[in-house]
């Protein structure tokens, strides 16, 4: 009888605890979920509807498919839209193919604590801590005012600034991207590397692995989740990232080199409400294109996970988790 009472009491306590947990859960999640419903679900649903609308001068709307027709026509015929699309892809490729592996290498150099790594780390952080417009202004001053002065001093030659000259504009901006986009990834990659158990790296070193072997066989497999997230999210933001081009448009008057991100910002701030449906339709088309890039890329990145090769390490991890969950259940029941 006493045992039964105890069990009943225990059951009541568990129920009260569960209720309290649920109460806490509801209170804490209410606002974020409401915000998500309005600012993500509501906004995106409205965006899809907006893509099929057309506004007249008094902002009354009619349903139409003309916005999509306009987008496809723009992608084929309008040089500005075409260039924006092409440039976004170029900047993404530059930051993914060149910058990301370099960033990975530099992060490893700092992780290994080689000479001057503290100084290099400090300098690499700088662009991240200094605002984009400030960097754009400084680069503009250097490229458009400093470069002609330097050419005059060194070769006694009069020339235009790198950003003022349409022939060199694109090259100058690609170099800018290469130089200043390292810091963004570097913080996360360094953090991921510093989280690696030191004994694993030490064991590899003691076994005679050189820096390259340690990087390929120990460090890279252990930080692969971070690497894969970065590769996928950088592809996701191809058409939302303006790659700093709006800053150069405002600061240096660069109009010939634009990206989809800067094209959207200029359009939405300067062309008025009646053009909103066109941008919503353009966004939907770009979402479809992004999905076509992201899903194969994600599958490829997952298939290249070095952990897949190490004697079924992932399967072992899953097995261990399952076992731990089963043990926890048994303990709970007991």
């Amino acid at each position, binding site marked *: 009888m006493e045992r039964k009472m105890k069990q009943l009491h225990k059951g009541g306590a568990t129920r009260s605890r569960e209720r309290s947990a649920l109460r806490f859960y509801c209170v804490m999640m209410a606002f974020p979920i409401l915000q998500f419903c309005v600012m993500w679900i509501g906004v995106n649903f409205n965006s899809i509807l907006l893509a099929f609308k057309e506004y007249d001068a008094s902002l009354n709307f009619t349903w139409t498919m003309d916005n999509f027709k306009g987008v496809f026509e723009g992608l084929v015929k309008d040089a500005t839209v075409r260039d924006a699309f092409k440039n976004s892809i170029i900047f993404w490729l530059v930051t993914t193919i060149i910058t990301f592996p370099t960033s990975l290498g530099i992060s490893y150099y700092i992780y290994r604590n080689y000479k*001057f790594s503290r100084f290099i780390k400090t300098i690499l952080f700088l662009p991240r801590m200094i*605002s984009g417009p400030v960097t754009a202004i400084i680069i503009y001053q250097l490229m458009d005012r400093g470069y002609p002065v330097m050419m005059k001093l060194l070769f006694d030659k009069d020339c235009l600034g790198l950003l003022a000259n349409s022939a060199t504009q694109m090259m100058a901006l690609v170099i800018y991207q290469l130089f200043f986009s390292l810091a963004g990834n570097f913080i996360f990659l360094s953090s991921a590397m510093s989280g690696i158990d030191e004994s694993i790296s030490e064991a590899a070193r003691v076994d005679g692995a050189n820096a390259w072997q340690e990087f390929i066989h120990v460090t890279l497999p252990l930080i692969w989740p971070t690497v894969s997230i970065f590769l996928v999210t950088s592809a996701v933001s191809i058409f939302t990232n303006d790659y700093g081009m709006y800053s150069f448009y405002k600061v240096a008057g660069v109009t010939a080199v634009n990206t989809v991100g800067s094209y959207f*910002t200029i359009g939405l701030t300067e062309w008025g409400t009646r053009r909103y449906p066109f941008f919503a339709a353009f*966004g939907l088309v770009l979402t479809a294109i992004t999905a076509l890039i992201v899903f194969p890329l994600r599958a490829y990145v997952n298939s290249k996970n070095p952990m897949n090769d190490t004697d079924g390490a992932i399967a072992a991890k899953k097995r261990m988790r399952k076992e731990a969950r089963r043990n926890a259940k048994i303990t709970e029941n007991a």
Partner: protein
Amino acid sequence: MRKLQKTHRKEVRKASRMTPISWVVCILLLIYACCMLYPYLLAVLSSFKTLRNYTDNFFGFTELTLENFKKVFTGFVYPIVLKDGGSGYYDFLGLTVNSFLYAAGGALGLTVTPCVVAYCCQKFPYKFSKFIEAMIYVVMIVPIIGNTASTIQMTQNIGIYDQMWGHWIMKCSFIGIYFLVYHAAFEGIPNDYMEAVYMDGGGHFTIFFKIMLPLVSKQMLTVFILQFVQLWSDYMGVLLYLPSTPTISIALLNFSSLASTTAPMQLAACMLASIPGLVLFAKFSEQFMGSLQMGGVKG
């Protein structure tokens, strides 16, 4: 045993030693770091030059002055169109206050919201938590592009457009990479802590505010600083959703089109605008390392 340890230490030291290849990498990195630093140093120098000195002697200097900084504080005026259609202006101090409110409020929302949601999803394995987690991964992989126009319409409809508090609400979003950071952090905290507090009579709010938040405070501070700096330099959000509350970033972008401004003055304003980021960097640079780890993208 001691001999073994000594050999082990020797091996480790030997393996971490600089090789010829690492020296080459080191030199290349130093060159890169100097190239990166040079434009900023030149900008600092130029901000102390007179206009004449700046035009005649771009790379060198003959006389330095604080006049540009004084002019930024006293003579700089940024015109705006008010919500009622009238006109007004902001001085540099006003722009700084706007920037601070915009960046600090937004960063707070972007720091706390993913933390709360990640905690709830990680420690309360309800079906809804699993659904939220799966949704976050999907949203991160396939965002709907071009919803800015719709966001402007939506904010106008619900009355938060062109309001600072509206911007703060917009930033209370848990979607993004920092959700993964917090999720990984909470995953690393054993549930025994919760059990112990519960046994002592504490509730879930006590567990969250007194135990869990202090344990992830390092991550929270790092996320807050990174978001603060990002929002401090953000211009798109201000342009699109807060047109009558300009920040320093907006003023800097439009600087050259304003009356009575010069290039050295623009650079002086840039230097002043960079101070908060640099101060945060100087104070918390060591904090960044090792505090932002995250799990993988689930299939």
